[in-house]
């Protein structure tokens, strides 16, 4: 018969585990609520910025396509992968990593060079093991998630995207207009300049993160971040002629500020979605773990009681047997 003491110990340890999973579930629930509030708070700001951006971009005309809006062949692509720093969140990180991996291989098959920047320890470890070209990783973002942190990441992405790109576009523009290439830049050693521009810039940036649907379901989405595609509704076109804004300072200068700001907001929104998803996934996982622990405790208790009963019966039998023998 199973050792009574061993079973008792086992029950104790499962109970302790259950306490931990229950506590983790509560913490995740509280953090989820916080993240959801942050998402709601961000919404009006994000929508209004997009509004303003769309109205400016739709009136921008073709004569000056902003580098952050210009579409190019996707030869150099950066994937921004949002995962969490901690595990124990069910399939949350695995799903995001899988989506990133699939996208990576797809793009590579199309002949693109793929680089990464990762947010979260889990994604970094996953991609590093597979030999991905990680430009930069951000960890510990979630401990102190703020607009500033998102801004930092956003500025990094915009920087990576435009580094050298601005110059290349300018050069292309000049070539198209039949102007000679800019003298001072070219004089610095044209071969070298050519190399750095091609090395540094990117043609597209994608965000890969888990979108929050509910505590039970999270969707992994692959979202194009750059170039920005503003929502150009048909009705927008109509009143475009009717109300044109007075721009201060200029339309171009405003776009120069609006577009990076939009990127930062998008990054912040994706971070919040990701955090909400992470905690949702963890909550569900921990709920299941707590339930499993309860089931196991029930089963072990049954085994324990049975073993105890058997031991008592056996003892009784021995006593009765002994008494009978004495009587006889």
């Amino acid at each position: 018969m199973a050792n009574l003491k061993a079973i008792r110990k086992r029950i104790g340890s499962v109970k302790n585990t259950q306490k931990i999973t229950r506590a983790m579930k509560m913490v995740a629930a509280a953090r989820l609520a916080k993240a959801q509030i942050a998402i709601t708070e961000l919404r009006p700001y994000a929508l209004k910025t997009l509004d303003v951006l769309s109205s400016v971009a739709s009136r921008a005309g073709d004569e000056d396509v902003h580098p952050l809006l210009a579409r190019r062949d996707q030869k150099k692509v950066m994937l921004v992968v949002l995962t969490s720093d901690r595990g124990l969140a069910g399939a949350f990180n695995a799903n995001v990593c899988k989506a990133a991996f699939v996208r990576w291989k797809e793009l590579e098959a199309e002949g693109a060079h793929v680089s990464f920047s990762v947010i979260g320890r889990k994604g970094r470890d996953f991609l590093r093991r597979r030999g991905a070209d990680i430009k930069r990783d951000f960890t510990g973002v979630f401990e102190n998630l703020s607009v500033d942190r998102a801004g930092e990441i956003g500025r990094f992405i915009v920087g990576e995207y435009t580094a050298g790109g601005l110059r290349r576009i300018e050069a292309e523009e000049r070539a198209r207009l039949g102007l000679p290439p800019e003298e001072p830049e070219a004089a610095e050693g044209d071969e070298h300049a050519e190399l750095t521009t091609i090395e540094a810039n990117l043609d597209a940036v994608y965000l890969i993160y888990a979108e929050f649907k509910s505590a039970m379901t999270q969707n992994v989405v692959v979202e194009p971040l750059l170039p920005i595609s503003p929502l150009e509704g048909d009705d927008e076109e109509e009143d475009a002629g009717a109300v044109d804004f007075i721009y201060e300072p200029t339309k171009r200068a405003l776009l120069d500020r609006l577009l990076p700001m939009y990127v930062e907001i998008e990054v912040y929104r994706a971070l919040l979605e990701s955090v909400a998803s992470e905690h949702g996934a963890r909550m569900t996982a921990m709920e299941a773990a707590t339930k499993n622990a309860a089931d196991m405790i029930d089963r072990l208790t049954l085994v324990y009681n049975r073993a105890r009963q058997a031991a008592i019966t056996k003892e009784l039998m021995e006593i009765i047997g002994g008494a009978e023998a004495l009587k006889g």
Partner: protein
Amino acid sequence: MAEELLTLEVATPVGLALKLDCESVAAPSVQGEFGVLPGHLPLLAALRSGIVKYRVAGEDRFAAVGPGFVEAGPDKVLLLTDVFVRPEDVDAESVREELEEAESRLQALEGAYVGHDYEEVARDIEWANARLELLAAAAER
């Protein structure tokens, strides 16, 4: 003619900070302060850190804003900004500390006034100054 009003809305990443009707709004753009009265032509301007003044029922009110954008129309003014604060929420002591701390960081840059670090310091200093300015303006009133 009936009293016409502007709807002033201030949107920040942490929610809609302000929504009310007012008679006029003055905001700091990158090219200097400008005022908006009802019936203003559509305007889109870049905002820098500074003080927003808005008049409600004949009384001027102030608030500090960070960098962002202003969209003005005939009957509304929309401010999109990182930060928004009312004078009663500013603690002069801590702002001065922040300013000192930011200025020492500026010193540490040793004249390298370009790039990411400088921009960050400059932003912090501007924001601290905007809040101190706000306190001064509020006290004056």
